């Protein structure tokens, strides 16, 4: 669960990490009143769960309370990356000298917590990591020992801070680690951590994500900051997604769901987890327009796959369907094939002319291919990579057969 900026800052300030003085407002009048209280230049930040909102008009500045009111009014009507702006964080505007970056996350390869520091922070941190990898300093942390002060000290040396400030930075890093480990966070980054012209450090923005599976034991802690468990979704689920979720829920066996609706013309039955994401990306790269994202795996029964396939096939605008999966070890290829064919037959489709692409391999693949051969459906085995299959699917839709 990703936290909003104001929630993150509330928690960070409880850990004595300095943050700019600010308040969340939901109306332009409140923004004006708080701007008056601050009595100086202010920053208005849209509270949305989008990354890079600064470049999309999600952060604006005002010199006077009147201007703040006007800006707030405009911002509260806006939409950023599909998220409606419902609240703003009004903050005192700091005089920034330099932007730094500190963050805690997990190293997927080493399977350990990871601390990252950089003397170049800000919105372009991803670019910095590409162009100046030497400016990014990483250190794996033992889960048992935690972040030791000496390690934090070593790391903050990389921030090129003027005298005395490394002590402050070390304290911030240790507190950030304290938060990270106590709250079961999977990401806690302060970007940017700014050095103000007054020679102080402050967390100007923070991005915190809490592990969803740990939320049950973090309820009380988060409750202290009035943060409730929620699903991070930009929009409410569509009827299509609700129906798919019901199909998945109705039978406990396997997964044939986690559907996200898109506006394209290529229906997808893809599986599972990382494999489906990779396939989805590949389809986009080849210029395809997926009609949906979904995951099929865990040995879902034929009936479940059939219902999902029917749902995807009957979605308006779908002109073809692609079943692309990795080498299945936890599902049976023949079940997927049966489900797909059953759906098409029950919908009264012409199996020979309707654009279908089937690329799957793994358990019971020969059985699956035998079924597909019988019904005249084009299929590919493991000799065709998922990436190639994605390209073929896009081509198939373009040709219309």
């Amino acid at each position, binding site marked *: 669960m990703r936290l909003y900026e104001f929630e993150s800052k509330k928690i960070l300030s409880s850990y004595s990490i300095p943050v700019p003085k600010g308040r969340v407002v939901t109306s332009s009048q409140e923004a004006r009143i708080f701007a008056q209280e601050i009595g100086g230049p202010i920053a208005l930040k849209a509270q949305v769960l989008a990354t890079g909102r600064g470049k999309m008009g999600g952060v604006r500045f005002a010199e006077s309370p009147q201007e703040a009111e006007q800006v707030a009014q405009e911002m509260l009507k806006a939409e950023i990356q599909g998220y409606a702006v419902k609240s703003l964080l009004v903050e005192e505007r700091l005089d920034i000298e330099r932007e730094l970056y500190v963050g805690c996350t997990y190293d997927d390869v080493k399977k350990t917590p990871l601390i990252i520091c950089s003397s170049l922070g800000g919105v372009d941190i991803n670019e910095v990591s590409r162009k100046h990898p030497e400016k990014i300093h990483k250190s794996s942390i033992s889960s048992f020992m935690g972040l030791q002060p000496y390690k934090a000290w070593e790391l903050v040396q990389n921030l090129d801070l003027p005298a005395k400030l490394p002590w402050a930075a070390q304290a911030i890093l240790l507190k950030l680690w304290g938060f990270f480990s106590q709250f079961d966070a999977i990401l806690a980054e302060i970007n940017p951590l700014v050095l103000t012209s007054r020679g102080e450090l402050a967390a100007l923005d923070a991005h915190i994500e809490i592990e969803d599976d740990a939320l049950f034991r973090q309820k009380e802690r988060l409750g202290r900051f009035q943060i409730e468990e929620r699903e991070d979704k930009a929009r409410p689920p569509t009827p299509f997604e609700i129906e798919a979720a019901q199909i998945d829920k109705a039978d406990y066996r396997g997964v044939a769901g986690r559907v996200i609706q898109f506006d394209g013309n290529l229906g997808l039955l893809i599986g599972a987890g990382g494999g489906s994401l990779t396939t989805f990306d590949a389809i986009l790269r080849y210029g395809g327009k997926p009609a949906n994202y979904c995951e099929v795996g865990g040995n879902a029964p034929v*009936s479940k796959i059939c219902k999902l396939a029917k749902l995807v096939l009957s979605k308006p605008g779908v002109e073809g369907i692609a079943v692309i999966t990795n080498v299945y070890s936890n599902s*049976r290829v*023949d*079940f997927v094939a049966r489900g797909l*064919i*059953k759906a098409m*037959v029950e919908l009264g489709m012409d199996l020979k002319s309707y654009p279908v692409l089937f690329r799957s391999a793994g358990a019971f693949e020969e059985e699956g291919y*035998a*079924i597909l051969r019988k019904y005249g459906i084009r299929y590919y085995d493991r000799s065709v990579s998922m990436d190639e299959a994605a390209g073929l699917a896009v081509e198939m839709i373009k040709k219309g057969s």
Partner: protein
Amino acid sequence: MGMFVNLKVNERLCEARETGCQKCIDMCPVDAFRLESGKIVTIFDNEDECTFCNMCVQECPKAAVKVVKLY
């Protein structure tokens, strides 16, 4: 009859009526069989779920069950 699998129960051999045997019902992991007025019948929708585990064939004391692939 399912689209992909046909499960056949030979009524002449099946002794469900006489002894109340329901071994195929008990064994089938996908519930493809059920009892209907003392007779073992198959559930068409679930026939397509058949995993070819052959438990019904192996357990039937009278060898009354047959699993037929339709592809």
